[in-house]
């Protein structure tokens, strides 16, 4: 899923300063699963914003709504009648949400209420970890199912580097050295000799280095 973090309340309050009628807009996709932008978080953020406004004796028309997804135009369309009635929309979807909403309703000020951080999974309830960097050329099967691109601090294809110590990466004792994990896993699987393969420099053209990406499926296009 796409994982994000709430923006500081102070930052959101600054965004909506002077804007009377505000909509806090959630998304039932990834951000609901990672507990940052679903219906519940919409309620919490909207309530906090109302408290802040009440405290200053300001109007408190802060409404709440959560769309099925904010990355599909058909769901954004549900706002068609209401959108222009707001002075500001705070989207707490991933970075796609505020862009789609702003694109559809050009007259409305749209603000991002969360910072999109990474593509990852839940290690346990309340803990998420980065697992994919969407490099556009998945190779995890060569590394025991562990991704050296997303999980090695240097994205090394031929690791580990000298910064690996006691199973951890030199950048932080919290970060596992994925190359240590890869070697352990490959040894466990009896595939250690596969790591003798020297990988040439990765072609990053499939990643962001090739510019913004687009996917087209001719059979689905209308």
């Amino acid at each position, binding site marked *: 899923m796409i994982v994000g973090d709430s923006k500081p309340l102070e930052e959101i309050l600054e965004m909506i300063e002077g804007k009377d009628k505000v909509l806090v807009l959630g998304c039932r996709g990834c951000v609901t699963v990672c507990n940052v932008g679903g219906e519940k978080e919409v309620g919490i953020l909207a309530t*906090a914003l109302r408290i802040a406004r*009440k*405290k200053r004796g300001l109007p408190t028309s802060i409404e709440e709504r959560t769309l099925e997804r904010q990355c599909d135009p058909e769901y954004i369309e549900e706002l068609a009648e209401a959108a222009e009635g707001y002075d500001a929309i705070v989207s707490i979807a991933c970075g796609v949400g505020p862009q789609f909403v702003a694109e559809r309703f050009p007259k409305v000020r749209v603000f991002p209420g969360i910072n999109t951080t990474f593509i990852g999974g839940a290690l346990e309830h309340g803990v998420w970890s980065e697992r994919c960097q969407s490099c556009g050329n998945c190779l995890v099967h060569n590394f025991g199912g562990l991704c050296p691109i997303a999980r090695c601090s240097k994205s090394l294809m031929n690791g580990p580097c000298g910064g690996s110590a006691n199973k951890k990466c030199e950048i932080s004792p919290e970060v596992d050295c994925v190359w240590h994990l890869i070697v352990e896993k490959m040894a466990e699987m009896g595939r250690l000799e596969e790591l003798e393969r020297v990988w040439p420099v990765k072609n990053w053209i499939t990643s962001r280095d090739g510019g913004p990406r687009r996917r087209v499926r001719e059979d689905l296009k209308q």
Partner: protein
Amino acid sequence: MRLQYPSNIKVIQLPCSGRVDILHLLKAFEDGADGVYVAGCKEGDCHFLTGNFKARRKVNYVKQVLAALGIEPERIEMFNMSSAEGPRFAQVAREFTQTIQELGPSPVKTAQAA
């Protein structure tokens, strides 16, 4: 045990303190409560094992939200007590009421009244 505790306290019963939600706590402040406290079972005594620990974490979360909004985080607290400790319930009620009285009315309420 006809124990007295301040009459301004509105008791909301929950099956377990773990059921309390961040939204319940925030809504109370939105509606003008001067202070809110959660009375959970003693740590280690939760019938559902971790309900009171979860409640404490939620209370701490709301403390952070209040601080970000410029409201004293002391207006929300978590207390642990056994259901057999009537005198402690009354004592906590008196002490917390005292704390809130010292802090004064909620800024949410005073701004509305002004």
